[in-house]
């Protein structure tokens, strides 16, 4: 079997020290293969975002190992692209400037950069908005730019931290389809954190359910059926059954976390 794209072994995370320390993650083991779309779902405060930040290299684990393509993760880097719920974009750069940002940092020559920017503007359907500033765009458009900015860097893995959590339901649904389309086109590896069970099932080929704090991996479930658009899941009995099963699993944890 090929080596996994991302490999987490016995990863634990505690915030603070001494008696006030909070255990956020308790021994996480997780291997993610290339081209997999992994969604992580769990009750709020279960440490799912922390897990993503550890993979991103923004935080260091208290113990355990995280390897990306066999190399240990020691800090942030352009091999892991991240889209946050907000604040991924630089407000002082235009859409074009934001998408070109990572390419400039990498030293990609001007002509090549322009070509990649154009390509990614088309990919997220933002042609004509290249000279706007983020504050002039809607939340959904901002997240499209963030996605284009991240993809333009050609990361090995795409990390997404509740990227659609602040959007209205309609915009969210449309962006879910876009992410699925982009993932299918590039067959990128994606690690996507959400608290929305429906989103987790609709996007993930592999759904990871986390326990209440300190976060542990409760179960990993593969979705072995698919449809073209998220809409088509609505009338799909297999989807409804899987969603219900995962919701019950999450609900158990939400109730366990209640004081």
């Amino acid at each position, binding site marked *: 079997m090929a080596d996994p794209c991302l490999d987490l072994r016995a990863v634990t995370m505690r915030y603070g020290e001494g008696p006030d320390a909070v255990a956020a993650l308790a021994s996480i083991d997780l291997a993610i293969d290339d081209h997999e779309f992994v969604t992580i779902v769990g009750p709020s405060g279960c440490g799912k975002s922390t897990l993503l930040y550890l993979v991103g290299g923004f935080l260091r684990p208290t113990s355990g190992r995280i390897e990306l393509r066999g190399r240990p993760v020691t800090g942030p880097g352009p091999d892991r*692209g991240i889209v946050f719920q907000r*604040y991924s974009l630089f407000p002082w750069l235009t859409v074009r400037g934001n998408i070109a940002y990572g390419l400039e*940092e990498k030293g990609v020559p001007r002509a090549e950069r322009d070509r990649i920017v154009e390509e990614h503007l088309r990919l997220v359907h933002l042609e004509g908005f290249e000279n706007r500033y983020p504050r002039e765009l809607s939340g959904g458009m901002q997240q499209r730019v963030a996605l284009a900015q991240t993809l333009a860097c050609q990361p090995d893995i795409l990390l997404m931290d509740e990227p659609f959590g602040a959007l209205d339901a309609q915009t969210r649904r449309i962006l879910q389809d876009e992410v699925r389309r982009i993932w299918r086109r590039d067959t990128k590896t994606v690690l996507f954190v959400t608290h929305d069970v429906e989103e987790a099932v609709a996007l993930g080929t592999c759904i990871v359910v986390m326990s209440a704090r300190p976060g542990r991996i409760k179960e990993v479930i593969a979705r072995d059926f698919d449809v073209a658009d998220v809409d088509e899941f609505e009338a799909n009995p297999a989807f409804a059954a899987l969603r219900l099963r995962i919701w019950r699993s999450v609900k158990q944890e939400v109730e366990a976390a209640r004081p």
Partner: protein
Amino acid sequence: MSSRARSYWAGALARLLPLALVLAAWQAASMSGLLPKAVLPSFGEVAASLGAMLRSGEIVPHTLASFARAGAGFGVAVAGGIVLGILMAQVRFVERAVEPVLLLIYPVPKPALIPLFMIWLGIGDFSKVTVIALACLVPVVIATFNGARGVDEMLLWSARARGTSERRILWRVVLPAALPQIAAGVRTAIAVAIIVLVSSEFISAETGLGYLIFSYGGVGADDAMLAVVIYLAALGYLLDRLYLAGLRRLMAWHAFAH
């Protein structure tokens, strides 16, 4: 005229209306004898005096002298204040060393330091420029420090995940993210520069708008004295408006309050 332009002018008129009412009341009080000339000359007399000064050009060299002093002090303060504020935000030692001094200087009325600086640095322009610089430095340093310290962590993470090294992050993220706050600090510094400038010119100067106010006041030429005060207020207002208009143009990416 577009409806947007029309509403702009309507807004400008509405803002001027209270001022016009105050001036009209002032003039009416003088003309009715309610406000004797010994207490306050009429607005008409002050305006006539200002007109004469502008026509004769007598006010021009004083304006230039004042501008040079205020501009020098302000310029030094903006450059130094941004550097110092960034250093404080980035280097723990600098923050520990500078913060207590800054907090000590903060509440001191800077004009009160003018006599002391004159003893140290002489009664010429150097001591005036130094006090203006010191006074303007405070708001710029505080704004820059707060702006640079308050950069959203996610923005820093975002930059690092897109390949920005720690060495470049200052230029690529911290400085641009702090710009709106720095710009607000600089705006405060413009007003502070004018206040301290005039105070410093009261004490020992042969030129400048502060000198003019003080010397007209000393000989009882109240209308001319007030004319210079009004001229100074108009100048300050204009500078502030110009600065804001420039900011809106240069920093189109930021939504300024007004």
